[in-house]
């Protein structure tokens, strides 16, 4: 029984991370109908932002709550800006073209981030940027405290990241469904041309969407790296694809769907890997994707919109 509960704890812990990243994918797909391949790498950049900021503030030698908060918020802002920049220079010029073109550009941006970060460090900068391919150790924002609840092991990291993740998701729900910006976002994702005709500044809405999505990815990165402190430039790759699978599972374009999808994927991976052969763990996400796309392409909560000609 404890093993089962432990698996649930582990699964939820990973699942919330998938959910946070999946939100970024789903929102961007909703407004632009584009799979932002670079999203997983924005996550990676968020982790490294946290790394550099923590080291700059001296958080590894002398951790404190204020420093942790500063690192957290600053990384979110930096990644949000990165997302806006990527959209502005790589995706906006291609908005009128075929979707395939934008998709290839997205792959290009993704590779640029991954391999750009693997370049040898520029000596003149004083700190190791780009970080190079060797994994780095992420400084812990606060010391780990373990809890042992009748055999099930938790750490304060798990609790904090869960609460923070849920908090961020609730905040996002509020933004999307209760604010004007959220309404514009939903309008643009329904039909961007008409939304523009109705007076919505489509460019601004799209930039805002990217900002939101990317900052959530950065938040996920810091929460994750806090308790699994090894970061390297390729960490966003697999995670990004899996988060995308989660978004598709929940219904791409649907915000609550992404959250549910992320949790579901985290738990599925955990249980399959824990109770059956663990080496197929990566394959589970893809198998799930294929099954979903074949059986119910709209996902759990998505609505199937027929293509009008």
């Amino acid at each position, binding site marked *: 029984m404890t093993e089962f509960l432990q698996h649930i704890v582990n699964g939820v812990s990973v699942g919330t991370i998938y959910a946070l990243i999946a939100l970024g994918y789903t929102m961007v797909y909703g407004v632009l109908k*584009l799979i932002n391949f670079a999203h997983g790498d924005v996550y990676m950049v968020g982790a490294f932002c946290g790394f550099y900021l923590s080291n700059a503030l001296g958080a590894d030698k002398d951790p404190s709550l204020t420093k942790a908060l500063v690192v957290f918020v600053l990384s979110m802002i930096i990644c949000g800006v990165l997302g806006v920049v990527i959209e502005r220079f790589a995706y906006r010029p291609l908005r009128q073209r075929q979707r*395939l073109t934008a998709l*290839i550009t997205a792959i290009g941006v993704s590779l*640029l981030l991954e*391999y750009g970060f693997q370049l040898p460090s520029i000596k003149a900068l004083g700190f190791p940027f780009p970080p190079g391919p060797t994994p780095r150790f992420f400084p812990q924002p606060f010391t780990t405290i373990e809890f042992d609840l009748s055999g099930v092991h938790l750490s304060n990291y798990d609790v904090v990241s869960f609460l923070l993740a849920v908090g961020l998701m609730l905040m996002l729900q509020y933004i999307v469904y209760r604010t004007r910006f959220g309404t514009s976002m939903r309008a643009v994702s329904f039909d961007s041309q008409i939304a523009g005709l109705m007076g919505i500044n489509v460019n601004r809405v799209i930039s805002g969407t990217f900002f939101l999505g990317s900052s959530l990815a950065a938040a996920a990165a810091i929460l994750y790296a806090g308790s699994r402190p090894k970061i390297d430039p390729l960490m966003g790759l697999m995670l990004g694809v899996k988060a995308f699978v989660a978004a598709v599972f929940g219904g791409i374009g649907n915000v609550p769907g992404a959250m549910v999808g992320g949790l579901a994927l985290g738990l599925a991976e955990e249980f399959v890997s824990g109770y059956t052969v663990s*080496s197929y763990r990566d*394959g589970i996400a*893809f198998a799930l994707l294929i099954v979903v796309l074949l059986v119910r392409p709209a996902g759990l909560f998505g609505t199937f919109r027929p293509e009008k*000609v």
Partner: protein
Amino acid sequence: MDTSTPSAGPLRTLGLAGRSVTPLAVTFVITLIAYTLLQRAHADYPSIVLTVAGINIIMAVSLNVVNGFTGQFSLGHAGFMAIGAYTAAKIMLGLHHSQIVGLSPFISDQIFFFFALVCGMVTAAVAGLLVGMPSLRLRGDYLAIVTLGFNEIIRVIIENTPFLGQATGLSGLPRITTLVWVYMGVVATVMAARRLAESTHGRALLAIREDEVAAEAMGVDTTGYKVRAFVIASAFAGLAGGLLVHQIQLCTPRSFTFIRSIEVVAMVVLGGMGSVTGSILAALILSVGVEILRSVQEFRMVVYSLLLIVLMLTRPAGIFGTRELWDLLPRPFGRRRASPAGGTP
């Protein structure tokens, strides 16, 4: 059904079989001469570079059939390469100690290799069928992720199967790939692609690329044609795989990650999706470029990615767009075809 407009000139007199065999025979002679010259000069390194370039050409041209002619976006081409490679490797390892009665071991090895390559193509084609049938009902972006997924699944399966050598892979493969084999493969692939483009199949594929809904409305069985294109492309990827592993004498899953798939996509995009000559040229440029840039090789993928981005922003049609080199050649060798509705993406 060969509905291609027959060309005037000497080639017409040869008949279909003759027209198929002549390019292969000519290539055989030319590459045999080139190969012997390179061997005499002990020019191992240029020989290897040309061989790798040839394999990349086969990959790029075959992917062009799916990405270029049909307008679908497959990101899993390396997976089919892997299937062809492992099949060919297993067969060659199995036949390592056999030879055909009456023939010298060398000739018998070449025959076995041909057999192994063909088997590799067949298994890759079957895999293409299995992957294509469910996936090709999906739209562009989903297909990309699904094919990526299949690439990874194939790799995960290989890494978990002791019969296939798991992560260590299969070693001890004979080094039987030569320039001759590779360029015969190149010519076969190019011929197949060109014939396909100029047939009814090809017209259907182009129609699907231009407007899938309209094509379906006009009675084109879109899924069927898409699957057929996918199967053909996979078969030739399998050929490239078989050739590759017998060149490096090692068959590991690490050679077939989706990074390789993306490299092939970059070649197709650079050359122009829909242009076979473009794919050939781009594959050559990128293969040779990699070798030249070996001293700054950590920048290679960065250059690739910048290339993709800049290309998509400035000239999404690539170098050749949908044009072919042989459209420009005079009539005896070129075939006049009514220009398809090939617009820029």
